[in-house]
């Protein structure tokens, strides 16, 4: 493959100042247009890895490159990244449209340009009717949609999502999962998605990276060779169960070696 990879993680390691070894040296390459999911139990360092990719945390060792440049220079590559947090992290005092416009305001985008982009982003997540609402007037799922709209409004090419739907009920989560896939294919995004749900990982990803805890490390990579668009019927197909089983076995094998430690 001669194209430039979107994300390169080169022997990246993280040790917190208190001595916790959050992540053993990790190597990972994500190609443009991939949907890669980091799957693992709590404490496996998946969020840590994602935050290091975003530049929110410095690695203790190793290098992270986005389109062959360090994260601070991502603008020079013509690419943009957006980060969607576990919680909606909206400003409670600002209306939905102002929340979505925030990254544009921070970047100094003029209002005439920002307005239409905010409207587009809200339409993409199906919230155009709620532009004037306050976050507290929305359900958890809708707040998360606002958060995603805020991530999309900057027209990113790389979307990093840290367990974005973890706090939602299963029905809402499934709906948002399939909406996310629609956006991913429509916008030709590269996505790195963190979750601890095996089913979410299988449903969404082109590739699943299985991680294990204590110490945090990569265990295995599983390619999900199923065509898109993936409808609800994919969730109940035999292929789906087979992948789920494979991931589950992989997680069990990884934790089995250190089962005693995992309990402490």
């Amino acid at each position: 493959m001669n194209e430039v990879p979107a994300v390169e993680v080169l022997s990246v390691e993280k040790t917190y100042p208190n001595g916790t070894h959050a992540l053993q040296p990790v190597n990972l390459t994500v190609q443009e247009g991939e949907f890669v999911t980091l799957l693992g139990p709590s404490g496996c360092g998946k969020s840590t890895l994602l935050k290091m990719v975003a530049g929110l945390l410095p690695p203790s060792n190793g290098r992270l490159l986005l389109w062959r440049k360090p994260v601070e220079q991502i603008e020079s590559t013509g690419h943009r990244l957006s980060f969607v947090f576990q919680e909606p992290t909206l400003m409670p005092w600002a209306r939905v449209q102002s929340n979505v416009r925030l990254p544009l305001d921070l970047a100094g985008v003029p209002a005439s340009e920002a307005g239409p982009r905010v409207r587009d982003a809200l339409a993409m997540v199906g919230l155009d009717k709620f532009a004037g609402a306050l976050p507290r007037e929305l359900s958890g799922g809708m707040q998360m949609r606002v958060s995603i709209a805020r991530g999309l409004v900057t027209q990113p090419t790389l979307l990093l999502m840290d367990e974005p739907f973890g706090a939602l009920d299963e029905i809402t989560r499934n709906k948002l999962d399939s909406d996310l896939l629609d956006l991913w294919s429509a916008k030709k995004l590269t996505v790195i998605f963190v979750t601890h749900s095996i089913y979410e990982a299988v449903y969404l990803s082109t590739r699943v990276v299985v991680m294990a805890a204590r110490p945090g490390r990569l265990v295995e990579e599983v390619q999900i060779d199923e065509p898109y668009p993936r409808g609800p019927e994919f969730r109940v197909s035999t292929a789906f169960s087979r992948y789920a089983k494979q991931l589950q076995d992989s997680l069990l094998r990884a934790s089995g070696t250190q089962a005693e430690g995992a309990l402490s």
Partner: protein
Amino acid sequence: MAESAPARSTKSTRATPLLARPEFQRVFYPSLVAVLLIGLWQWWVTAFDIPRFLVPSPLLVAQTLVADAGLLFGALFTTLKITVFAFVCATVLGVLIAFAFVQSRVIETALFPYAVLLQVTPIVAIAPLIIIWVKNPTASLVICATLVALFPIIANTTLGLRSVNPGLMSYFKLNRASRLQLLWRLRIPSALPYFFGGLRISSGLALIGAVVAEFVAGTGGTGTGLAYQILQSGYQLNIPRMFAALLLITVTGVLLFAAMAWLSKLALGSWHESEANHG
């Protein structure tokens, strides 16, 4: 009321009698207690024939308030002027100090103990000094009242400016927000609920500070404020007037508090949990 209320509450308002409505209860029950207490007081004074220089009847207090209206309301105006002036000074100073504290840990570490020192030193103890040092009597009273009202504003605003949702903080940092953008778009809005909490406490303290300072300044020729009227009435055994002045101070304090609560509701009502009264 029921006609203009939003659709979801119409049904419940129509179905419930006046007495069951919370907004009516909030006014009705305290008023009922007031009427009962005042009635009891009036009855007690009349029934036991209590001399007016010991405890005047509520009726007499009201009559005095009307008869001495010119004197008392003039005094109220003086006290109110000092209170409001001190309150504004405390707010401005407190906010500036809080901003300084948040900008640098060194400044906060160095100065915070002195803010506490200011708070724990009884104003009665330092008021005489201030009154001696500052020539202008009004200014000296304003300084005393400001000192009393300052600390809650500093403490609350500092806490508020620091109480930023860590997720939002990360989001702003991820988007390379400048220091000014962080302050203006994140820290200040996050601090508002705390700031208004500080205002509510401080408005009452400014009044207390003003009254205490007037007491200390006393008959020394400075004041014509309400505290001075209370002192004078005490010397003259004009107890009804003393009660009337006391009543004015109390009502002023309540009104100040209510004004701050209203302002807070106006500013935060739509978004903050503390002001939102429905789910």
